[in-house]
């Protein structure tokens, strides 16, 4: 919603990429293989019908002329005679009109259906594709940028399908048929109209490119001013505390004035374009009348396709032709303007379409895993697969020779000599080895950027390692189906992301089949039950907008409960309690300890108190493990951990 875009009818310098246009149309046809061509045909018929009145006008006036020249008859007799010729014309016209209006109504309604159906299907398709994209895509593309494909780009596509394409088809057909009719009647007059139209296009191009310059300047000012506003609004409280209001006002006025000047120039140009184009149209109209009149009076022989066909080369122009030309001029210029405006709209929409396609064409996350997680039970001391929920899980591992083996899900994770980099050449992890036995608590400590979170990203295969091996219960994780791998890992991230829905819905996200009781039990386990029951609607309290109505600590508790309800054998806690104040954390800690019992847990924490009781603590620096051991060992070592612990280093 911005007026800073180039106004319609002005060239923005964008070129239409026919490939994308074809892809959009192909897509439309594949969604609605019958309706789309049907609507197309309707539009063509209606457009032709709406350009033929010129013929009827000419014919009727010609009849009038013919009879008006006859003298000696009374008015009513003339009319009775002319009626026989005029009325049939009008009846045909009315019939054509009625058909055209019926068709138009039908296709307008269908178009609404097609447009929305297309958008919905495209949205769903895009969303489906998006869900399959690797995490890397979301880490490397700005979220706002991804979002704008769903908002702005889809909106421009709506314009394209519901307006630009039908209009351009309609206007194009009208321009074409009017042109044929014009040529049919008179070459001379057609030349006059063409000359006028070219002037019009030329002028609008000149003004358009002049204006574009100022629009770019305006765009820059808008960016600067908006940036300033944003910064000041965010820092409003600081401004107050420092009594900085007057200075802020001064700076703002300067930017605001500059924006005003640039906006004025850009709009002044754009505003003038309309009247100029319209009046060139008016002048053309007048010139048509004048030239036509002169041709008529001077009896210059009229040449047109009609005269060539009938062979009456010497006949002069008739008033009826001039009049229908006057109307055709308006129609012609009007529709030509439409086309030039729509071309811009199409270029803009296609730019949007390309961004949508770009997302849809991005390489999806591949999943070649064939080891799956199944419910299992022991029978005669042997682990076998079963359909019912047993609370016991096993990895089902098909081998090349056709045999199947079942490995119990235990939570044994080994990283061996792992190397990794997000961007080539910038190594993030070097030779990292971690051994986590089932039920062990492994902690990662280190400065921001040391690679702590990266390790967890590799275990759940958000990213794939470059070198080395990761094994889960002895199986190479590359062989495990990603969805099964991930559902065996409970993840709690520092940045809590809750979804719109009730608190209960959010906890159930961890296990869609969980009963209310299971969800409440999970909340109780992690110590979230207390505050949830105090919420206005308890577990049925609606959370919106990532749970803005909760404190950050409360959000973290819910996300911990969410991970707990799935009862995974392995948990990854990445700064999961960072926003819970120490006193509350002490309370939560008991629940957390209970939660971690019997599970393999990877903990990343800023607060060393949280990791103190870990079985092994790894200190990371620049992608390398520089110290490892228990709390007591590391304190004894008096190395980096010791310095962190005593507060000599900041963890920033």
């Amino acid at each position: 919603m911005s007026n800073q875009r180039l106004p319609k009818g002005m060239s923005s310098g964008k070129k239409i990429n026919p490939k994308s246009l074809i892809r959009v149309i192909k897509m439309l046809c594949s969604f609605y293989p019958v309706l789309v061509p049907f609507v197309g045909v309707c539009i063509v018929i209606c457009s032709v019908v709406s350009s033929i009145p010129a013929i009827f006008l000419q014919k009727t006036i010609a009849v009038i002329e013919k009879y008006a020249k006859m003298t000696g008859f009374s008015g009513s007799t003339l009319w009775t005679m002319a009626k026989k010729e005029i009325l049939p014309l009008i009846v045909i016209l009315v019939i054509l009109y009625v058909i055209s209006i019926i068709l138009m109504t039908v296709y307008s309604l269908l178009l609404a259906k097609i447009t929305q159906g297309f958008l919905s299907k495209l949205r769903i398709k895009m969303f489906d594709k998006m869900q399959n994209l690797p995490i890397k895509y979301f880490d490397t593309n700005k979220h706002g940028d991804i979002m704008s494909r769903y908002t702005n780009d889809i909106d421009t596509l709506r314009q394209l399908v519901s307006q630009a394409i039908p209009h351009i088809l309609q206007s194009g057909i009208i321009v074409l048929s009017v042109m044929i009719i014009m040529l049919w009647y008179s070459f001379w007059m057609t030349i006059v109209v063409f000359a006028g139209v070219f002037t019009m296009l030329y002028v609008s191009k000149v003004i358009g490119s002049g204006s574009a310059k100022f629009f770019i300047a305006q765009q820059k000012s808008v960016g600067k001013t908006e940036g300033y506003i944003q910064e000041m609004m965010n820092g409003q409280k600081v401004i107050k505390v420092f009594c900085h209001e007057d200075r802020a006002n001064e700076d703002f006025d300067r930017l605001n004035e500059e924006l005003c000047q640039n906006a004025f120039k850009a709009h002044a140009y754009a505003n003038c374009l309309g009247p100029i184009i319209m009046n060139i149209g008016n002048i053309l109209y007048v010139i048509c009348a004048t030239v036509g009149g002169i041709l008529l009076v001077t009896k210059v022989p009229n040449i047109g396709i009609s005269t060539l066909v009938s062979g009456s080369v010497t006949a002069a122009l008739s008033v009826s032709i001039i009049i229908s030309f006057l109307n055709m001029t308006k129609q012609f210029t009007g529709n030509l303007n439409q086309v030039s405006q729509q071309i811009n709209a199409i270029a803009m929409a296609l730019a949007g379409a390309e961004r949508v396609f770009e997302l849809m064409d991005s390489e999806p996350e591949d999943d070649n895993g064939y080891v799956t997680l199944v419910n299992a039970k022991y029978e005669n001391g042997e682990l076998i697969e079963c359909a019912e929920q047993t609370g016991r899980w096993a990895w089902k591992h098909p081998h090349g020779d056709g045999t199947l083996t079942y490995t119990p899900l235990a939570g044994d994770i080994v990283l061996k000599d792992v190397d990794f980099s997000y961007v080539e050449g910038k190594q993030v992890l070097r030779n990292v080895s971690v051994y986590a036995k089932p039920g062990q608590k492994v902690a990662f400590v280190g400065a921001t950027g040391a690679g702590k979170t990266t390790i967890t990203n590799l275990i759940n295969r958000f990213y794939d390692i470059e070198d080395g091996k990761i094994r889960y219960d002895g199986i190479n994780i590359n062989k495990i189906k990603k969805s099964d791998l991930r559902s065996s890992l409970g993840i709690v991230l520092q940045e809590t992301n809750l979804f719109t829905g009730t608190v209960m819905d959010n906890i159930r996200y961890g296990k869609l089949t969980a009963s209310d009781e299971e969800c409440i039990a999970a909340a109780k386990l992690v110590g979230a039950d207390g505050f949830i029951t105090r919420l206005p609607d308890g577990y049925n309290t609606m959370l919106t907008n990532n749970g803005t109505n909760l404190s950050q600590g409360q959000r973290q508790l819910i996300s911990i409960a969410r991970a707990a309800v799935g009862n995974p054998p392995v948990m990854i806690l990445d700064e999961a309690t960072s926003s819970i104040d120490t006193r509350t954390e002490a309370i939560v800690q008991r629940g957390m300890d209970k939660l971690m019992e019997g599970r393999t847990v990877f903990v990343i924490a800023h607060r060393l108190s949280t990791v103190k009781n870990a079985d092994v603590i790894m200190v990371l620096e620049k992608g390398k493990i520089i110290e490892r051991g228990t709390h007591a060992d590391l304190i004894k070592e008096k190395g980096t951990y010791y310095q962190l612990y005593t507060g000599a280093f900041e963890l920033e």
Partner: protein
Amino acid sequence: MLKKLARSIREYKLPVLLTLFFIAAEAAIESLIPSITAKLVNNIKDGVSVAYILKTGGILVLLAILSLSCGGIAGYTCAKASAGFSKNLRKDMFRNIQRYSFGNIDKFSSSSLVTRMTTDVNNVQMAFMMIIRIALRAPLMLIFSIFMAFYIGGKLALGFVFIIPVLAGGLLLIAKFAMPAFRRVFKKYDRLNESVEENVRGMRVVKGFSREDYEKQKFAAASDDIRADFTKAEKIVSLNGPLMQICIYFNMVFVLTLGSYAILGGKSSIDVGEISAMLTYGFQVLMQLMMISMIYVMLTMSAESAKRIVEVLDEQPNIHNPENPVYEVKDGSVGFSGVNFKYSEHGKKFVISDINLKIESGMTVGIIGGTGSSKSTLVQLIPRLYDVNEGTVTVGGIDVRDYDLNTLRNAVGMVLQKNIIFSGTIKENLRWGNENATDEEIAAACRLAKADEFIETFPEKYDTVIEQGGSNVSGGQKQRLCIARALLKKPKILILDDSTSAVDTRTDAGIREGFKNYIPETTKIIIAQRISSVMDADLILVLDDGKITGKGTHEELLKTSAIYKEVYEQQISGGGLNE
């Protein structure tokens, strides 16, 4: 509401009036042209000289050029008026926001204020441009065209009697039904996009729980639901086209039939030229009606934006300078007596209640308490960022409400918990504290805040440019810069609201040591999560649920405050001095 907005036109009244005048002139001329052309055509039919044709043609071209000039000038003045209007609107909003107190600021989120000053102002500017250019022009053209049509066409214009009410009524009905339908759809549409945003943001959660298919199903259902609603709304609007076409076609048939009857029947002075003119006027009338309905839609759409702008303009700051204010703060003593406070008038519970406190000038006071215990609220009452509901807060022995606001706030240096470094150089940021600070003073403040060490490591030192949001300095560095900025004010009272949480304990201790040695006469109030940050204060307050539940020195509190003891033990035994 409109009156309130119109107040921002101010110096741009003349361009507005000029626009209206030239638009009216343009409309009048433009309505005249077809009738003169009609006459020309009639005369051509009856046979006239080339000279006559050229003369009339010349007049017509002149008229068109005149209309073009009027339109051009109107476009120019309109651009001036609308750009100026939106400038003033932004300025008025910005000015008013600068007058807001913390209470006012809390009412609006900062992102909502940004939207109001950008998108909403744009919408209103567009609507304003529409109004002054088209809102007058369309009805004028409509009236002129109808008048001219009846004047030259007589009975032929009777068709309009049918067209105008049908089209006007039809358009109005469409707008009336479509608008609420669209509004409903857009709301749903926003919600859909919010859910996409949730997904994009929370993709790690979705993937972490392998919920891709679940999300796909949810989205497909929501998208299809919107499709159904949207289709209904679009269908209503899509009737516009056929309706318009019916009227054009009706006029065509009507004019042709009645026209040929009238000419041949000889019952009136109508000639073929008029037929052409009538078709043109008919078309013009339809276009204008279409315009009017478009304006109607535009205006209702921008009404929402206008409302949001007026909300910002109408918001009255609730903290004012007193009459005959005190311009000098004697010393840094602070007193609270019987203070109760709540953020909203309608709030059931006081956020802060029953606070009685005496802080001598030069004391160091530590405040500790869990999240939501209102520590920040308490200290924000001192520089009168909020006004108490009951009781009094005094600074230097005088009620804060008696001071000149700037005097008071300049005497109280406050480092907020959610702190902001602005884009610009480090020096520019620090000068917020004192515009005229010398380089030595700046360096001294940075030494005291322990910020000099890292500033010196930057190649540009004090001229290092801080990016927006301070993204190129770490959290701990940012906090130290903010402390230095507050120190430059040379405040009588310095308040640190959890301002060293990201600073390591050793540096933190160094900063406190510096305070003790170099600014002994300044009252220091320190809010902290870390008990080590407040342990050595002269007075420590333990806040719980807006009440002071413990008061005293570290040793005293260990004996008297269960909460303090618990926190202390948890931090000392649980995580060393680091947290």
